[in-house]
């Protein structure tokens, strides 16, 4: 077994190159002193980053995205937590059907989801804006949050909840004192991932946001003008770094305490 399988290594390198090299161009060009994305590089500058400070519409869009992201992630994680607990803990009639129903937004094309909400929302006579975007994001984020939480709760020892009931706590006290602290890493991971999914989401926002642009909508609008491209690149680079950090954090949290160091996690958090 001394012979190394180099063909697999080559495949792996090509795979990762294909995946990440295009993404790397974004930060590289964001420091390039030119309006066009082309080689050779024209020189180093941080002007594009400084430019972001002065864009009022960018700030407005960022704030809109944060608001939508926070509400969507909190609501979808709450729904997902209750659903995940029910799916793992209990066997009930209609289990598979309701599981499928919650997972559906994960599977149907986003554009169909967007158009459906758009038609209903307009027919109900409500104005477009951040509210329908948030509703769409809740639908879209819930299956992701639920998958994370199911993975977390599946490893949970339910005799801990029985022990709490046995020691005089009612159902709420048990949830608050035992289940919640132990689910917490999973809950935070679900919150972070659904926030990021909402923060990056474009199609639902495109159909439903009306004149209240979210950050991806703002970028889309700016890209129509060549002069405005560089600060969008800078913005994109910032978002990539931020998103990567959050996703790594979420994955670390999802796994923490699942193994040997189970007893330590709740204190760290």
């Amino acid at each position: 077994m001394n012979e190394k399988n180099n063909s697999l290594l080559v495949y792996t390198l090509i795979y990762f190159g294909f995946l990440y090299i295009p993404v790397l161009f974004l930060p590289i060009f964001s420091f390039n002193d030119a309006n066009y994305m082309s080689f050779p590089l024209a020189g180093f500058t941080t002007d594009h980053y400084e430019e972001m400070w002065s864009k009022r519409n960018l700030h407005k869009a960022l704030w809109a995205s944060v608001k939508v992201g926070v509400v969507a992630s909190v609501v979808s994680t709450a729904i997902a937590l209750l659903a995940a607990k029910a799916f793992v803990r209990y066997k009930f009639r209609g289990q598979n059907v309701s599981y499928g129903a919650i997972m559906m937004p994960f599977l149907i094309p986003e554009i169909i989801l967007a158009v459906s909400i758009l038609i209903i929302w307009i027919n109900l006579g409500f104005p477009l804006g951040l509210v329908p975007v948030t509703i769409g994001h809740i639908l879209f984020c819930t299956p992701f949050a639920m998958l994370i939480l199911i993975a977390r709760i599946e490893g949970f020892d339910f005799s801990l909840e029985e022990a709490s009931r046995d020691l005089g706590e009612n159902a709420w006290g048990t949830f608050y004192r035992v289940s919640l602290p132990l689910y917490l890493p999973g809950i935070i991971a679900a919150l972070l991932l659904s926030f990021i999914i909402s923060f990056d989401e474009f199609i639902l926002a495109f159909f439903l946001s009306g004149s209240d642009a979210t950050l991806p909508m703002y970028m889309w609008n700016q890209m129509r003008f060549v002069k405005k491209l560089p600060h969008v690149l800078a913005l994109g680079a910032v978002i990539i770094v931020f998103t990567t950090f959050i996703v790594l954090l979420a994955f670390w949290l999802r796994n923490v305490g699942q193994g040997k160091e189970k007893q330590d996690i709740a204190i760290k958090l």
Partner: protein
Amino acid sequence: MNENFIQINGISKHFGNVKAVDDVSFSIKEGEFFSLLGPSGCGKTTLLRLLAGFEYPTNGNLLIDGSDITALPPDKRPTNMVFQNYAIFPHINVEQNIKFGLRKLGLTDDEIKKRVDDVLALVKLEGYEERFSGQLSGGQRQRVALARALVRQPKVLLLDEPLGALDKKLRDEMQLELRTLQKEIGITFVFVTHDQQEAISMSDRVAVMSEGKIQQLSAPNELYKNPENIFVSDFIGETNFLKASTRSKDGDHINVAIEDLGDFKVKNNLNIPENSSDVVCSVRPESMMISRDKSDWDICLEAKINQTSYLGEMTRFYVEVSGINKVITVSSQHFDNQSFENNTCFISISLEDISLLQKK
């Protein structure tokens, strides 16, 4: 002393078509060490969970100290449980685990401190207050689980196979310790186990369960000496079954024909009817004598040793009696496998040691 401290009245628990507990009625005395013993799936754990309030019965009712607890949730019952896997909360330390159940009892800080200190001393865990469950051995976890339940001073302590996860030496120690502890604090213990040796060595009384029903409820020595049916005889200790049929009664004795051995008069504690062919005779391996020479016991049979297993304190012989195509197990403290020439020996049985049982 209340004879009917825990009353189990006609309790059934059905899961779909499965009758996990099937119309069971009995009482447990105050301050008693009571065991529910049986193979897995016999309903013993379900019965314990019914007492704890984790399951509700399909039929029947439960009383503890005169009050009906049938419909009460676990947090309203005067019971506490030591779980099979101990269920120590992993996110809080030993002291917080022990204090967990004191929050709602309305105690002052001084009273809480005293109770925690007392119970830590009782289970010998002083100095472990700051540890987390991952930093404890199996035996220590078991002590935490015990302390956490006892600190609430329940009327009844329920124990669900608490020694199952420990190694043999520690298990033997804990058996003795649990027994001593129970006598010291005087709380009624209801102990679930599948280990017959554990049940008979620790308990005041044992209920042997099978298929959701109580097979026999009596003191450990009664279970062993006077089993009431084949299941109990087979489950408690080891035994040999010999086919037989009854003849005529003679006072509290009865004449039986044991297959291939002849006619004998044995005691008839269970009042088995005359002329029944659905009976067996049970003889314990250690109640028989194995010897080199013929003895003057009631029954003495020449036999051939098929196999032996040396167990240290005794040796077990698997012998084939001449004329009977059946292997009988005999154990002896005096002989080992070196003692017999040509594997020939004599097996002696006293009629007093034969239990007559009825087939179902």
